[in-house]
């Protein structure tokens, strides 16, 4: 996986790291069951604070993309790739809907009609 940080960007560093990891999952350069570098390692490689990386990892854990265990480190969950691809689909759906002039309420109705 390749992580690219833009220090000049408005997006917070942790969000950039999380975003790059999501992209790596979607592209398949990180696969299910794989162990990610420790927060300390990633932080020193990127030249950022360890807590920044931990926050990125926690964000991914909340999205159920990784598991964090004291003994095993940060491990990609089995369903991570699928979840990332689904949220990519949702993102492009919302993008297309907005481009077509739909309001948020209308997009929700559209989705609920399919459920």
């Amino acid at each position, binding site marked *: *996986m390749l992580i690219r940080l833009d220090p000049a960007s408005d997006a917070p560093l942790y969000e950039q790291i999380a975003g790059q990891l999501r992209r790596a999952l979607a592209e398949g350069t990180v696969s299910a069951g794989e162990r990610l570098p420790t927060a300390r390692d*990633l932080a020193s490689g*990127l030249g950022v604070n360890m807590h920044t990386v931990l926050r990125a990892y926690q964000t991914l854990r909340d999205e159920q993309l990784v598991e964090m265990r004291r003994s095993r480190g940060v491990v990609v969950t089995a369903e991570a790739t699928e979840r990332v691809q689904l949220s990519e689909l949702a993102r492009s759906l919302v993008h297309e809907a907005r481009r077509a002039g739909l309001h948020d309420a209308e997009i929700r109705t559209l989705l609920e009609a399919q459920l």
Partner: protein
Amino acid sequence: MNRSIARIVLALVAVVLAAEALSPLRGGSLPQRMATHWGGDNRANGWSSATGLLLLSISVAVVCVAVLVTAMLARTPRVRGFWPTLTGLAGFVGGAIGGSTALTVHLARNSPDPLTTPGPTPLQLVAVIGSAMLFGAVAALAGRTAPARDPLSTVLRSPELGAGPQDVLMWHRSMSTRLFVLVGLAVVAVGVVLAVLGEGAVAIVMAALGGLIIAGLSRIGVSADQRGLTVSYGWWAWPRTVIPVRDMASVDAIDIDPGQWGGWGYRGSLRLFDRAAVVLRSGEGLRVKLRNGSTFAVTVDDAATGAAVLQRELADGSANANTSA
């Protein structure tokens, strides 16, 4: 012979030779003095003390195992036929002395008077010489392992990273391989069998070795970033090989053929020799040439991206050096 198989065979030959040469240590006490040489009439005409015999067998074991282990780890190129001849000789001499020591002890133990024991039967002599020749042949065959000095490798094209000049990049890949788990388990199994047969010390060493191989090389993590190249071994990511960017002369993604790098596993050493490689499979890998003339290579997926990241760091480093100078 495939080099990794050759090395396993060499290791087994070394262990069997050591076990055979140390056979006087097994199975209880030895007679103080025993017949060790016989004339044409099959009557004893030379005697030796138990201590002398033990010293002989221990030194033979040490020398043979040392030669075979050196051949296994050897990375320095030699004249064609050097290693096969050396390992073949070591195997033959080890087999001959180990075998005849074992036979002498066997004769003395099974005789009412160890001083007048009749000599070995022709069949026993043939067995000793035959096994020595077999050891020699196997060791010579397995000894054909000296790796090529400078493998010609295909350099893979590095991709565009699409990174701005201010961007910070880090590339990471991990690889695990079942090959080393299998090799490790096989060694543990041999250890267990030897333990059952009563070869306690050898069994423990082999089982421990197997465990180390499993843990140490079944998984590696490779990172490329502003620190340089980091390769971590094992599930706990330790030990590590770290090559800082300032020590690098050039970085390439290449196609690694294990045959040209001395086989699978951790080959060579950056400290002792000028080449080291971590080869877990054939195919793409990273090759770093160091400023001091050494070369380090590691097989890893998507090596071209890793190489591009390091090439960028290298270019940054030399640009900074130019501005400051």
